[in-house]
């Protein structure tokens, strides 16, 4: 996690840096299905998708995932945010073979509030990345995936 | 709640192991005399025990695959392996029959009381 997130700027100080760094318009506006879904690490996928992987942690993103997945094949994930002018929401799972699970394009008038069900192969960190006013914000939570047993 | 059975269970397992140990030594002697015939006999015994367990509704789910493996080994000429597998299959079925007898007499022990 540590090294994958080396570009993740968590402080307010970092936040100002991000403003400058992501000034360039993200590629996404024109993108259809992105090659980012094939990339096998978080940084690379974000770079491919947004043209940048510099993000600020935000407590204004509500990422709803279970602490312990009842079933790794079907894990409900919801992302909701009050950040302004949201244009894109992505969901990543850092230890899946390809971390980028889904990416939603949010046009004006559509709520920054989406739900989906994803697969998690093992215990890992699920993160939501929100593009707001052209900048990237993120929040994350670990989801425990237990394998084995009999189905209860 | 669960302890009342463990002693009996252990006794059951030991009995079964003892039976197996005895029959094993018997078969070993036979192996040296006429390996083919002894193997055939052991397979026959294993299948009979399996049929008995099955008839009681207590066959174990992996017995058949152990027998199949044994037959494959026999076909490939690996008599030692075939012998071990037949022995294992027979052993399982002997335990399964014991289990059936035990269940028949003592199943009510698991019924919650008032």
């Amino acid at each position, binding site marked *: 996690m540590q090294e994958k997130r080396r570009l993740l700027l968590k402080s307010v100080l970092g936040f100002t840096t991000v403003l400058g760094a992501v000034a360039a318009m993200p590629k996404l506006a024109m993108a259809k299905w992105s090659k980012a879904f094939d990339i096998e690490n978080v940084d690379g996928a974000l770079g491919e998708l947004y043209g940048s992987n510099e993000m600020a942690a935000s407590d204004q993103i509500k990422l709803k995932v279970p602490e312990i997945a009842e079933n790794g*094949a079907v894990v409900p994930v919801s992302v909701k945010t009050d950040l302004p002018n949201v244009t894109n929401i992505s969901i990543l799972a850092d230890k899946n073979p390809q971390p980028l699970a889904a990416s939603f394009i949010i046009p004006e008038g559509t709520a920054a509030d989406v739900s989906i069900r994803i697969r998690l192969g093992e215990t890992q960190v699920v993160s939501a990345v929100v593009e707001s006013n052209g900048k990237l914000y993120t929040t994350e939570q670990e989801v425990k995936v237990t394998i084995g047993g009999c189905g209860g | 709640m669960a302890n009342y059975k463990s002693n009996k269970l252990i006794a059951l397992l030991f009995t079964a192991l003892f039976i197996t140990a005895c029959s094993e030594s018997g078969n070993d002697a036979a192996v040296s005399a006429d390996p083919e015939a002894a193997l055939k006999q052991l397979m026959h015994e294993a299948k009979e025990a399996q049929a008995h367990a*099955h008839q009681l509704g207590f*066959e174990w789910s992996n017995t058949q695959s152990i027998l199949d493996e044994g037959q494959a080994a026999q076909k490939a000429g690996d008599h030692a392996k075939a012998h071990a597998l037949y022995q294992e299959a027979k052993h399982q079925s002997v335990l399964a029959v014991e289990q059936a007898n035990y269940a028949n007499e003592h199943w009510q022990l698991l019924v919650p009381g008032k």
Partner: protein
Amino acid sequence: MKAITYLSLALLGAGAFAAPTYADPKADNEVMHEFFKKRFPNVEFAEFSNGVYAFDENAREQWLEIEDFPPYEDAVEHGQTLFETPFANGKSYADCFENGGLNIRQGYPKFDADSGQVVTLELAINECRTANGEEALPYGRGDIAAISAYMATTSAGEIINVVVPSDPKALAAYEAGKKLFYERRGQLNMACATCHVHSAGGQIRADILSPALGHTTHFPAYRFAVEDLVTIQHRYAGCNKQVRAKPFELQSEEYRNLEYYHAHMSNGLPVNGPGSRK
């Protein structure tokens, strides 16, 4: 009192029975329900229909989210289509069942006095087919589970009332099912009751064990492990394999009797099938 009545009936009824049966299904349920109420003091009785989701908050939340748009909706619709499509002879399932097959799930399995056998809903569906010149469907999953699931939805919320009549054969079937439920079998030497009575609410590897009370209310169930709707007997076979016991045939007398006992135990609980489960 009742026990004595049953006993004398059993004795009267049969030279065929070597040993008299002592079953008193009603008393069994009183004991069983008390057992589970004591074990799960915070679970409302009707909530037992929801299995582990009655007491595992974390799992319940995810489950409710899934149930909000459940993965089995398609299958239930498919079941309805099958149910409503007439057979080649012009008749349909509705002709085989009381009340046109609707709102009857809560009474199954039933004891059929003529054959002296327990009739599960899936067996009745296939008997209806063969009586009308159609081929029987394979048991366990697929169309039979879809039809059964659709029929269950027409009984949603109805209170389960499986009847064991005072017929020695019915009592014998019930008793045989009960025995099967408590017999330890397989390489792991476990009975149904080992996990789902005495360890209910406990953990087996990564899973929380569901109480036997309420098991049958939500079947056929959509199992994520199978990614399909399955009947309760498909689950029995799965459980048997998990303790490394060779399963009985689906709809064998053994499993029908087991289902009879198992379903009767949930008398008083609401039907809520199909439900999604691990």
